[in-house]
């Protein structure tokens, strides 16, 4: 039974993120934030899907996301992250970085802190393309090739790494608490920019990236500059890749070609115990390099290029072709994504 509905929101969604839930509670996430782009007046908005402890819902019932509050945003929202329960950091195409605070009681949003024009060229603003945060530290990257470090409570910037590259830096993620990984280019016969990166939640040396050609690559950062495995995922740019935070055998990717794929590895050669409705493909990963020697059981299934050791199932999660899916986020059993067709899709029963 399809449990995905589209909600049309009159703005192209560039980013969507779940508000983090505390690890102790088993609650499903209920609030997510979205940022828009390509509007004359862009906005950030908070939405609720009303999941407060209601576990006994009917199978097919899906309430629409309800708008809680919204706030004007200067420039396209190029990236958005939750700093903590109440605050989000956004980066803008005007080169500004802003922290917004969501006041839950009054359902309003206020600007908590702002660093305008941190990313810039000598005579122009540079869009700030990515942000990653580990409260209170915030790291942003931009088209000007700079990496800038802030602290949430301090006015100025802590550190600027100029000219980290002369190309645009598209994405950034934390490797360890003191290291970050930025994402620019990759070579496999043709030079292609990488657009997104995500680190495996448990095994920090494993990183997945997605690029301009829609290829999904899994890397081991300890070993060299060639990806471990390359998989043909999409027919156009891949915009976001996410490991499931608590169940990292599952990976989600979304792309300009309008599809959202759910990848699942399993170490058994039996068929997986479920089949999501919709198109379903089996993909065997091609590996560029054999796994290094050592205890096989410690090597993640993502790195096992050999098809006999693991099987990769992919499923399309959206009911039909849409315009580009720009962003997705997954937490618990809930998945939210936003498209250029000005629609938000929420799936509350992701099989993980």
């Amino acid at each position, binding site marked *: 039974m399809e449990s995905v509905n589209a909600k049309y929101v009159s703005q192209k969604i560039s980013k969507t993120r779940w508000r983090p839930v505390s690890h102790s509670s088993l609650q499903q996430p209920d609030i997510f934030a979205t940022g828009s782009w390509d509007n004359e007046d862009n906005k950030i908005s908070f939405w609720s899907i009303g999941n407060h402890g209601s576990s006994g819902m009917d199978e097919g019932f899906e309430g629409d996301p309800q708008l809680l509050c919204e706030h004007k945003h200067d420039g396209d929202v190029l990236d958005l992250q939750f700093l903590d329960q109440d605050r989000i950091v956004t980066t803008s195409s005007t080169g500004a970085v802003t922290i917004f605070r969501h006041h839950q009681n009054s359902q309003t949003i206020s600007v908590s802190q702002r660093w305008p024009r941190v990313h810039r060229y000598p005579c122009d603003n540079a869009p700030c393309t990515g942000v990653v945060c580990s409260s209170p530290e915030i790291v942003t990257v931009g088209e000007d090739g700079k990496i800038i470090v802030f602290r949430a409570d301090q006015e100025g910037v802590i550190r600027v790494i100029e000219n980290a590259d002369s190309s645009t830096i598209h994405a950034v993620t934390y490797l360890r608490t003191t290291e970050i990984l930025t994402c620019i280019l990759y070579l496999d016969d043709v030079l292609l920019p990488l657009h997104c990166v995500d680190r495996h939640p448990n095994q920090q040396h494993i990183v997945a990236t997605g690029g301009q050609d829609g290829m999904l690559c899994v890397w081991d950062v300890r070993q060299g500059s060639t990806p471990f495995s390359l998989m043909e995922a999409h027919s156009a740019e891949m915009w976001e890749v996410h490991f499931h935070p608590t169940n990292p055998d599952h990976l989600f990717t979304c792309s300009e070609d309008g599809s959202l794929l759910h990848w699942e590895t399993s170490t058994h050669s039996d068929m997986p115990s479920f089949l999501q409705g919709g198109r379903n493909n089996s993909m065997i990963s091609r590996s560029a390099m054999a796994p290094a020697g050592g205890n096989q059981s410690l090597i993640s299934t993502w790195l096992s290029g050999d098809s006999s050791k693991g099987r990769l199932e992919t499923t399309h999660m959206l009911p039909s072709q849409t315009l580009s899916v720009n962003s997705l986020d997954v937490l618990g059993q809930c998945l939210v994504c936003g498209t250029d*067709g000005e629609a938000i899709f929420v799936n509350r029963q992701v099989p993980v």
Partner: protein
Amino acid sequence: MEELDVEPAITNIPAASDGKHLGFAWGPGDILAYETLYMAPGAKGSGCSFIHEVRKDEDIYSPILRKLFNESHHIFVGLQTIREDLPSKNKKTQFVSISKNYRSVIRACMEELQQVAASVLVLQVSILLAIELIWNLCEVLFIDAAPAGPLLLHLLDWVRLHKGDVDEKAREVLQSESPAEHHDYWDVVVSYVLQGRFEEARQMLVKQATLQPAARNMYKLMDTLLSKMPFYNPGGTQTLTEFDVKWRHWHEEVDRCLQDNSFASNQHLEIICKILVGDEDTLLEHKELLSTWYHFLVTRLLFCHPTVKPTELHYYAQSCMTMFLDLRSVPEPLDSILLAAFEFDIHQVIKDCSIALNNWWFVAHLTDLLDHCKLLQSHNLHFGSNLREFLLLEYASGLFTHHSLWQLAVDYFDNCPEFGHVYLELQIERVPLDTERKALKVLRICEQRQMSEQVRSICKIMAMRALRNNRLGSALSWSIRAKDAAFATLISERFLQDYCARGTFSDLDLIDNLGPAMLLSDRLTFLVKYREFHKLYEENRFSEAAKLLLSLITAKIAPRSFWMTLLTDALPLLEQKECNVVVYLLLELGDMEKI
């Protein structure tokens, strides 16, 4: 040049002062107007620095209507993928369901607008109501194309759907203490009868019957008459002729009751009986309850000609409209559109709608659907394309002027086989490219459609911008994507100049990893190889470095301006053991100097 159908509308520009001459320039979706300094003699004047933008289509900027555009785009794309080889019966069901999808999108928008309840939106709500009314009728008459028999049932549904106030009134009456004594009670009963909703009418009448035990027989008679009225059952085994016979039987029975004065003592029941027999004067007395001539039409057909054929509709429609509307009142555009629909004149419907509405959305989608149903004859316009394509092009061009909805327009252009590609080529270059991400999306659109000119042009814009901001690596990757050799040469020159100025390279990552892309231009190849030379030197692989340097010079891809630098680089090699190679090198260079 054809004559104008209507007088052009006049729009006042409020901010412009009186008596000034206005100049103007056409834009893709609007006009820019400005005051000029041209003055009549004797007039005083000062310059004015304003430019006025006059937009025809406000709808695409409405946030609620945007959902209409996005959702209908989704439906449109799905419609185009319906396979041609399906049997026509399956296709018809699919087309009807697509039509219903479109209508439900319109309704959803309408409901949302009504909730917002601002006064300025009342007009929009009424326009959407009218649009849905017309679309529904077109669905019944053209797409579903029901024959005599089911036709009337569909028309009844149509009228019931668009006359919602009956249910509201009924609810009010039923919730009152004594429904049968409510002042609207008889209005509700008559309205139900007029709409052919006899079940509800009978339930209401029961309440009145219990209040008047003396007249019980009369009410029972009315109840019997109402329950026995035959309705055609499309799924049943009864043929149309059999139904007709049954209906005439029933009609005679009602007429007999009327002649017998069975209801003479109760004027309400008498009225209902006259309605059932189809008496036009009685129907016309209830103009307020009917409220529209097309309701009157359907009611009249229900009680006089339930087996009406589609081809006969226009005759009844015309006469009903004449009877219902006063001689004084002017027919509204909606009336003439509906009349044209009843006359099965699709082209007239489309033409009238195009004139009446300020947005091409409705006519474009409706025409596209009708075209898929193969209902439009090819109608050659002066512009060489057919009607469907013309309307879709107009609609999509309007979308392209919107800062955000331009992405939808791409799919519409894709489905216009003759001119869509050309339109897209012209429009896509005008999309402003503020960020790299947007540029990538536009590029993807162009590359998927083999629009190589536009790809080159966009990449060049982005590369120039990067160059201006001294982002050489970015500029280089843009020119590689465009396969623009000339630009790659330019950028490589800049890299080399940089090196000469600073003594080191910037952007080593990019240059080191170009791979086969470095063959794009000679200068680029030289740059990569030169960098490789430096790398080899740093790794103390002197013989290979020397050989590379030599090959660079003999292959003649080193620019003349760089020879001094190359010689300077060769000097340290003299100290190494491979000096014979270097000597040869120097001789080579000397050789070339002579030439």
